């Protein structure tokens, strides 16, 4: 099936539409979740994943055959796909769920991605996705997908170097207290951290330029449903209650040290002799 002469890379980038991080989050009156009637945009970690994929193409040129983005979400998620296409992805898959459906959980998402990978005639060599989504902060999808596929995994990547000839990826990971370098065999799942290093310089995801936004309108978007690819996205977890953290209570001013001591005593704070 796969071309044997020249190795060509196929990259898959799963992305998620989330409440924009600049938006102030409010719990809904029923306390079942948050107010979703606010501005959404691409999960910032996924934006970095898209940027990483495009940079790999900029480095390797024609060796990258395709960059495909995929999202699982309500009809409005199509906007997020268009943004990724405008940034430079080639094509997209939208697994559409009804507007009213509950948000899929990481395992459901990982199973969907597995099914999609298996549907790709050309195969998938590298999956790059954000290390977590800023709405549920689960941070599990990449690892679950690697487990389901039995593929290499490199999480929290800050630097990605891909060698299509050798079929390996060299990844630098952000870990506690330093950096860790990994060498992974293809196929590989990479999850991206916030910092992205290229040629020793941290870079930010690019803006979609106007000509590219126009071009993105003509790029193909394949629409599927969970039923069509045979996965069940029904949540396994039940959300019991969502509440806001307790409000901070303002402090008071005291006029003298004596008053401070009196107030501390009142509050039940007692000194200890050394």
């Amino acid at each position, binding site marked *: 099936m796969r071309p044997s002469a020249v190795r060509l890379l196929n990259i898959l980038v799963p992305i998620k539409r989330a409440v924009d991080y*600049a938006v102030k989050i409010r719990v809904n009156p029923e306390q079942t979740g948050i107010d979703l009637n606010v501005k959404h945009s691409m999960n910032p970690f996924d934006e970095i994943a898209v940027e990483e994929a495009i940079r790999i193409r900029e480095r390797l040129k024609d060796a990258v055959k395709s960059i495909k983005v995929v999202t699982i979400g309500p009809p409005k998620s199509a906007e997020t796909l268009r943004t990724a296409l405008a940034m430079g992805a080639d094509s997209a898959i939208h697994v559409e769920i009804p507007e009213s459906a509950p948000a899929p959980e990481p395992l459901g998402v990982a199973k969907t991605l597995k099914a999609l990978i298996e549907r790709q005639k050309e195969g998938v060599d590298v999956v790059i996705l954000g290390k977590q989504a800023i709405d549920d902060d689960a941070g599990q999808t990449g690892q679950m997908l690697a487990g389901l596929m039995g593929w290499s995994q490199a999480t929290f990547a800050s630097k990605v170097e891909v060698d299509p000839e050798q079929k390996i990826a060299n990844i630098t990971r952000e870990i506690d207290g330093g950096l860790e370098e990994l060498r992974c065999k293809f196929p590989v799942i990479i999850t991206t951290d916030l910092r992205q290093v290229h040629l020793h310089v941290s870079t930010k995801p690019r*803006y979609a330029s106007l000509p590219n936004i*126009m071009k993105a309108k003509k790029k193909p978007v394949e629409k599927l449903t969970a039923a069509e690819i045979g996965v069940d996205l029904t949540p396994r977890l039940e959300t019991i209650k969502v509440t806001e953290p307790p409000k901070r209570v303002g402090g008071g001013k005291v006029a003298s040290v004596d008053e401070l001591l009196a107030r501390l005593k009142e509050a039940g704070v007692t000194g200890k002799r050394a």
Partner: protein
Amino acid sequence: MLRLHNSIRPAFRSRRWAHNIPSFSHLNTVNEEDLAHFSSILAPTSILSTLPSISTPADDIAPYNVDWMGKYHGQANSVLRPRTTQQVSEIVKYCAQRKIGIVPQGGNTGLVGGGISLQKEIVLSLGAMNNVRSFDPVSGILVADAGCILQSLSEHIAPHNHIMPLDLGAKGSCQIGGNISTNAGGLRLLRYGSLHGTVLGLEVVLPDGTILDQLSTLRKDNTGYDLKQLFIGGEGTLGIVTGVSILTPPAPQATNNIFLALPHFDNVLPLFQIVKRQLGEIMSAFEYIDRTAYDMGLQHGLGPLLSADEAGGSQCFVLVETSGGNQDHDLEKLNNLLESLLTADEPLINTGVLSQSPTQFNSIWALREGLTECVQKEGKPYKYDVSVPLADFQKVVDAVRERMISKGLYGDHAISKVMGYGHVGDGNLHLNVIAKHGYRPELEAALEPFIYEIVADRKGSVSAEHGIGSMKRDALHYSKSDVSIDWMRKIKQVFDPLNIMNPGKVIP
């Protein structure tokens, strides 16, 4: 190039350009006795003074004596921070009796030295008067103390889905009373008009200590002379604004912005026309940034919105903002506009970006709003805020640069950058001239009155939105006739016969 000298009107050529030092012989300096009296009006923490009885550390009083650019240095030995209008009234009454000059000061973010004492005046800071008095979410009318910070007011009314009718880079520090006293313009003027329209009423302490209470919440009130208009842009020379009633518009439900790269300045005007026509009522800002300013922004970590390849040889950039009630409707209009711009036979733009998220929306604005701070980091800026016909924006900037080159003052040894940015929609150009190693008299002499002459020659205004203060007092005549200035003097005389209220400012 501008042909300046052969077209300058004779009146300007014959007039002598000189900075006249205003006389303060009629005023008294604040002494210990005065402080004792102020202590009977104000709490001890509301009085700052370097005089022995209070002996505030110099560091604490310094911020009141220097503007944020570090260009104007005041001489005030005392600062008062009243909390109520009544206290302001009593202070002013006493100062009138003792003939002590008063400089009202808001957030001290002014750019023309209007809030800095010239000699021995006392500084009256409104910063401690910072309570919102009322807000009516139905009419959108906000009544607040003069010392409320613009951004705090925005935050106060945001939960009620209203926004302040004005917005400017200094919003985190500037105060509404100062905004009104200087008739600040800013980024939303194109959409919501000037403060002369949105301010419904004012509470002002007059130079004899009388409280003029016109804190009306009526949208329509044609009963005689509209006195409040005199204090909007009066720069504290006719009285101290202590309270404000202002009409706030409902918050737009959908906002978008685009950042466009233009091959040439000549394209700005045709672009402005097309954008205005196609976006119609949803256009809320049309801002201009020249290449020098854009490159400077990049050097200081703003953006980059475009890659170096995309920006290419673009000579200038335009930021367009839309505010409307329906995101789908607004996006459709924007997309149609962009499509027509990109597919035109002779495109007016090279490229551009459309914000894809609130975060990108903010970053695009940050590039425009952050320029003021970048300018500050580059050196000491001479800032000229002028109104000129749109077609002359770039010519004015170029003329100033040419002049600096011809005088041998252009380069890292003197003037390192000359740049322009501003509000195309309002015909308002911010001309920034950066003196890399600080302000020097010969640099100022090369710039002034040259710039004022070009502006006057173009029938522009020497101060579009920054006011006159002490910086442009002697340039007022470039934009106002002798008759106008004469009547300004008469008005000043009526309100402030003792000349104690912000003396030496505005009126030459």
